[in-house]
């Protein structure tokens, strides 16, 4: 059911087995896991069915660290959430992403890929992707009549991403929600605070308000936060009537370890020195096994171990006018050294390489409630301050990653790399930005001194509060988060079903 909460009366009480806060990819996918399961699910969605600038303004906040995108532009606050504008790139984390790496402080998940994999496969059709297979790029290429690049596997390997249409959860699953007899999505419902018992170890209810509408409460046996990497910690910090530092924040970790992918777009241009190269596997989308796929390049785990790097990936984009066409007189067996005049970037044929790099978990990077009295939202609640921090080590990682890519394009005889960071390794290039993948702010751990939620996404110290989505990712690898965070939420749904049974 879809319910406009503006039509409720002040003081109304909704009762449910599970209250899910947020109707984005996670909230909707998780709620529909309970469709017909005999439990009442109440989903609180701040927005309506369409974009509304007033509701969107609730996302406003202040970047107090390294400048990045305005907070209200990163995400979308209406039914379907940020899937209303996501790009749709999907790839699971690799097994290596879950491991503790001694050269990366605070790294490691308390779970393994094996525990997530069944849910990744289940997520695949939800995201309108093809068959769950991320390992057969070479075979797919053969079937498609395309070629993988002849990479030195000690440096880089080609791997596959799947492309979601991209699924707009708000439209794709609207009818399923409407039809459901036990899943109710309450639109225009802003959860202001979670009220707990006197020991702050059990959530009793959620206080909800509509803009220009009623205030009401939700009472539920279990509460699940699914509002993303910014708002999940914010709501926990705002829930401070009983616990002054916020719910589940006994160790001051709520909002800490804020991370985001480090993007350099473009990281480098490759001036091509050959005319017989076919990059279509990487630059185009290819239909196979009921879905769309494309190739990317990433280092093998051994290289990151050997060089003490974080993970990264390269995407290729075809920019040259007709890179597959003969370029008169420029072919050279010397791989085109004379094609790359240092004074001019003029080139008739080049490809662009975009890089996304895994950040280092950093306790000094955080989101927190503003103490500035002027930084209040429509409901008078503190906005967020976001301190995005990037370190010299991460800059060195990025420089080395681009070096590796540049070396490999030269070794393959494909072309020569042009990259600002090669000239100035101690400066982030102008093309550096964040990935808008807010992660780590309620990180998962096996120990409440190291994280906010346990391996089942339950908040340490609060017996019926769960957090899911990218905020629980302690490490984020190089890949896009959406497929993984939906899978994690299906896993949580199973856990709650078992617990209920």
């Amino acid at each position, binding site marked *: 059911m879809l319910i406009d909460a503006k039509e409720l009366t002040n003081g109304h009480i909704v009762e449910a087995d599970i209250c899910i806060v947020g109707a984005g990819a996670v909230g909707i996918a998780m709620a529909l896991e309970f469709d017909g399961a005999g439990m009442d699910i109440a989903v609180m969605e701040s927005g309506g069915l369409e974009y509304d600038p007033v509701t969107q303004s609730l996302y406003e906040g202040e970047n107090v660290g390294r400048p990045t995108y305005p907070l209200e532009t990163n995400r979308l606050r209406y039914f379907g959430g940020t899937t209303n504008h996501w790009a749709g790139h999907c790839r699971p984390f690799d097994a290596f992403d879950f491991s503790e790496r001694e050269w990366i402080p605070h790294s490691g998940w308390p779970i393994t890929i094996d525990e997530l994999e069944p849910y990744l496969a289940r997520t695949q059709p939800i995201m309108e992707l093809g068959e769950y297979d991320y390992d057969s790029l070479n075979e797919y290429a053969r079937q498609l009549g395309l070629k993988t690049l002849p990479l*030195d596997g000690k440096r880089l390997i080609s791997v596959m991403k799947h492309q979601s249409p991209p699924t707009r959860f708000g439209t794709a699953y609207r009818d399923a929600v409407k039809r459901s007899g036990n899943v109710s999505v309450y639109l225009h419902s802003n959860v202001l605070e979670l009220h707990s018992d006197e020991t702050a170890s059990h959530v009793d209810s959620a206080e909800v308000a509509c803009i220009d509408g009623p205030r009401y409460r939700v009472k539920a046996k279990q509460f699940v936060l699914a509002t993303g990497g910014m708002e999940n910690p914010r709501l926990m910090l705002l829930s401070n009537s009983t616990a002054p530092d916020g719910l589940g924040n006994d160790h001051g970790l709520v909002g800490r370890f804020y991370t985001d992918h480090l993007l350099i777009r473009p990281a480098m241009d490759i001036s091509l020195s050959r005319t017989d190269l076919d990059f279509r596997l990487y630059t185009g989308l290819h239909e196979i096994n009921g879905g769309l796929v494309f190739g990317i390049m990433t280092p093998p785990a051994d290289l990151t171990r050997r060089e003490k790097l974080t993970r990264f990936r390269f995407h290729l984009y075809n920019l040259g006018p007709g890179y597959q066409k003969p370029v008169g*007189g*420029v*072919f*050279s*067996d*010397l*791989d085109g*050294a*004379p*094609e*790359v*005049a*240092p*004074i001019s970037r003029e080139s008739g044929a080049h490809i662009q390489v975009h890089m996304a790099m895994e950040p280092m978990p950093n306790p000094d990077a955080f989101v927190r409630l503003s103490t500035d009295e002027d930084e209040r939202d429509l409901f008078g609640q503190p906005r967020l301050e976001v301190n995005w921090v990037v370190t010299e080590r991460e800059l060195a990682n990025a420089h080395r990653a681009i*070096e590796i890519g*540049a*070396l*490999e394009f*030269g*070794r393959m*005889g494909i072309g*020569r*790399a*042009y*990259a*600002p960071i*090669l*000239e100035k390794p101690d400066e982030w290039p102008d093309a550096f930005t964040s990935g808008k993948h807010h992660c780590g702010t309620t990180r998962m751990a096996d120990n409440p001194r190291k994280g906010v939620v346990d391996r089942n996404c339950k908040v340490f110290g609060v017996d019926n509060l769960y957090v899911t989505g990218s905020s629980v990712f302690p490490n984020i690898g190089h890949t896009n988060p959406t497929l993984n965070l939906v899978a994690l939420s299906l896993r949580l749904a199973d856990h709650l079903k078992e617990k209920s049974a």
Partner: protein
Amino acid sequence: MSQVDARCSRRDVLKLATCSSLVTVVSGLSAGCGLVGPDLEEVAQRMIETLNHRDRAREIGEAYMAQASDIRGQTREQLAGKLLDILGLDAGEMSHDMLESLEDRLGNRVRRDFLEEDVVVLGRWMLSRTETLLCALVAAKT
């Protein structure tokens, strides 16, 4: 003859020995050996000929010379000798036939540079050491 002895490799002599007439031998001696083996200027010229856009190569070479003090001011002959060293060739052992293989040898060496990270960052470009020297060769004075 002593000049011939000094500059003609054993391999070249063996090759010449397969020739059927004295005339051919004499001709071979004059074309392939001492009197005649390619000097460094010829080697340099052949290396430069492997490049398609020499005007751009000169720009790269000039930029490299401005950046690398150990290269600055070197003559074409010196740079050609350096490149032969990189290719594992002895200037004294060079024959005209070997000139023909320079392009392949240079190409292979360039790829090896990228494998072994023997590269030069020039401006924002990453180039192999060998190809950068080759460009310097274009820019160098004779």
